[in-house]
């Protein structure tokens, strides 16, 4: 194990433990430690859910490319794809926990599930996808589970043939769950008729396109970090870069399509939405558009793909842009009070009924119709703790399991 990996493991392990400790503190004190309040009831944690779910798409892209479309060049990255998918989908489930007011009651999801709730569907598909990625990874590793790892191996006559056969068989199933996690996570938002910002049929396809872009970027970055940017990987990286760029273009199209339709009609609600999305958050909006576009554009250049620092920087830019995109799910939804009316006798007026905050903020009224949310330190540390969890899991697996294809001497 190289010193670099060892250090990264220690660092991510420590961060994860700090995040865990802060979560316990929050469990004890309540969600008062976050900066959310009644009118702004979801914040960084739920943005984090959407972010990690998107990152988990890497497995899907690689599996379908290799086993459904026969792109053999990507094979060395298959296990890495399944691993990043598993790490991110479990991170997505973990980041929901600190958002839950009574996490000890989560078993109620098993005892009293309400199958009308998209959240229940999401719990089901996220678990199935986690299970599918783990199984898929296991099947791919099976031929190499020898020596000290032999006790892990499932006994079959010809492990290599078994692995090939079952990987192919599982691919369409895994693909279904993979599409499912993005679509259902989008439905949690887009089914809400109360929030004009979310209530759009474009959201689910947009989630799929963002996920394909960012999930593939995660695999590309992991692949480049693990294998370097040698000539033998260039064809695989080129293909991934192309997938990323196309997916970002589809994403930007779907997003702009939605914004144009929101903006064009110019009703009171949409006017308010645009004021927030293009006004208050103008710089964030520019970043969420420019960063992924520039990042993906750079990844199309062979010179960028041949240099590890450039590739890593471009990938990081894209991932950061997508993160901001996920953060922006909330403001235009929660700062646009749904209980808005045109009062009797005032046909040209547009008035929102203030909401009680539910918690004390010094110098702030109890009843508000607008709230500037910035995550608290507790929220940021817990989110970073979950990122550290995903990094640690990937590093540990790479270190202990036959994830990377060994160079033939």
């Amino acid at each position: 194990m190289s010193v670099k990996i060892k250090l990264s493991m220690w660092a991510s392990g420590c961060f994860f433990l700090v995040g865990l400790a802060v979560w316990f503190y929050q469990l004890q004190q309540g969600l008062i430690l976050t900066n959310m309040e009644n009118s702004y009831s979801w914040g960084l944690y739920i943005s984090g859910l959407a972010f990690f779910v998107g990152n988990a798409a890497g497995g899907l892209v690689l599996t379908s490319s290799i086993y459904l479309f026969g792109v053999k060049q990507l094979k060395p990255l298959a296990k890495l794809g399944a691993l990043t998918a598993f790490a991110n989908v479990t991170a997505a489930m973990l980041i929901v926990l600190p958002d839950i007011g009574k996490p000890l009651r989560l078993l109620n999801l098993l005892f009293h599930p309400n199958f009308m709730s998209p959240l229940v569907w999401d719990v089901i598909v996220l678990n199935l996808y986690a299970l599918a990625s783990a199984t898929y990874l296991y099947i791919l590793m099976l031929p190499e589970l020898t020596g000290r790892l032999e006790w892990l191996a499932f006994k079959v006559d010809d492990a290599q043939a078994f692995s090939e056969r079952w990987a192919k068989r599982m691919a369409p199933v895994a693909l279904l769950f993979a599409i499912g996690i993005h679509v259902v996570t989008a439905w949690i938002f887009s089914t809400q008729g109360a929030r004009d910002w979310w209530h759009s049929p474009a959201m689910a396809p947009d989630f799929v396109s963002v996920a394909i872009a960012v999930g593939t970027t995660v695999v590309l970055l992991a692949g480049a970090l693990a294998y370097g940017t040698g000539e033998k990987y260039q064809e695989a990286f080129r293909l991934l870069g192309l997938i990323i760029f196309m997916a970002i273009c589809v994403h930007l199209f779907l997003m702009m399509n939605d914004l144009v339709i929101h903006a064009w009609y110019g009703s009171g609600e949409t006017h308010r939405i645009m004021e927030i999305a293009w006004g208050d958050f103008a710089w964030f909006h520019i970043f969420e558009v420019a960063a992924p576009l520039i990042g993906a554009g750079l990844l199309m250049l062979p010179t960028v793909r041949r240099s590890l620092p450039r590739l890593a920087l471009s990938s990081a830019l894209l991932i950061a842009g997508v993160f901001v995109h996920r953060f922006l799910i909330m403001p235009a939804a929660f700062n646009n009070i749904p209980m808005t009316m045109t009062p009797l006798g005032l046909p040209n007026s547009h008035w929102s009924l203030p909401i009680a905050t539910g918690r004390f903020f010094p110098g702030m009224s109890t009843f508000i119709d607008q709230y500037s949310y910035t995550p608290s330190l507790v929220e940021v540390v817990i989110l970073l703790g979950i990122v550290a969890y995903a990094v640690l899991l990937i590093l540990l697996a790479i270190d202990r399991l036959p994830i990377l294809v060994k160079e033939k001497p």
Partner: protein
Amino acid sequence: MKMGMVIDLEKCIGCRSCMVACKQHNAQPPQTWWNRVFTPGSHRHLTPPIKGVEFFLPVHCQHCENAPCEKVCPVGATYHAEDGAVLIDFERCIGCRYCMSACPYGVRQFNWEDPEKAHKRSEYQDAYHYGYPEDHRHAGRLVYTPLRPKGVVEKCTFCTQYRDKGELPACVRGCPGKARFVGDLDDPNSEVSKMIKARNAFTLLPEKGTKPTVFYLPPKPKEV
């Protein structure tokens, strides 16, 4: 039996007595208000937005027939009682706050911290407790408790603890102008059904398709 409420805006004087009665009777923690009365169009309550136009709007849970909060609740903690009231089971709620974002009326409130701590933070007198003092179960489910634990969502119950004893909700009893009425919407001859028909009753945000069971009777234009 489908219970409904009618609020006569012609009779509402905007005094907020119902807000206070609701808050006290239901032991709501500081900064939590199940019932809000405001002056539509105006940024200041009891101040006309323009001369000659002024009415007041009380808003609490609309006990919708097609309630988005009930549909999104992953564990069925929010549910319809047999009489049509939408209630929350405080022993089942996991605190995911999905219902809060799904409710178009902004009536759902979260317990961000322990109520005793919230009292302290707002400098309430030590050991001062207000509201209906006992737990109340409706068909076995805990739908009222004076100190809601941190991490659960709460809202108007149409005062289930009083209605189960044949009494009226606190806001109805506390209204000095007698602007609030409760009755059976299924019975075409009930007082509320008659008022709804006779007075052009309207509901809030009908375009959201939530089918509220709280109806408003429009006010007459003011003579100034």
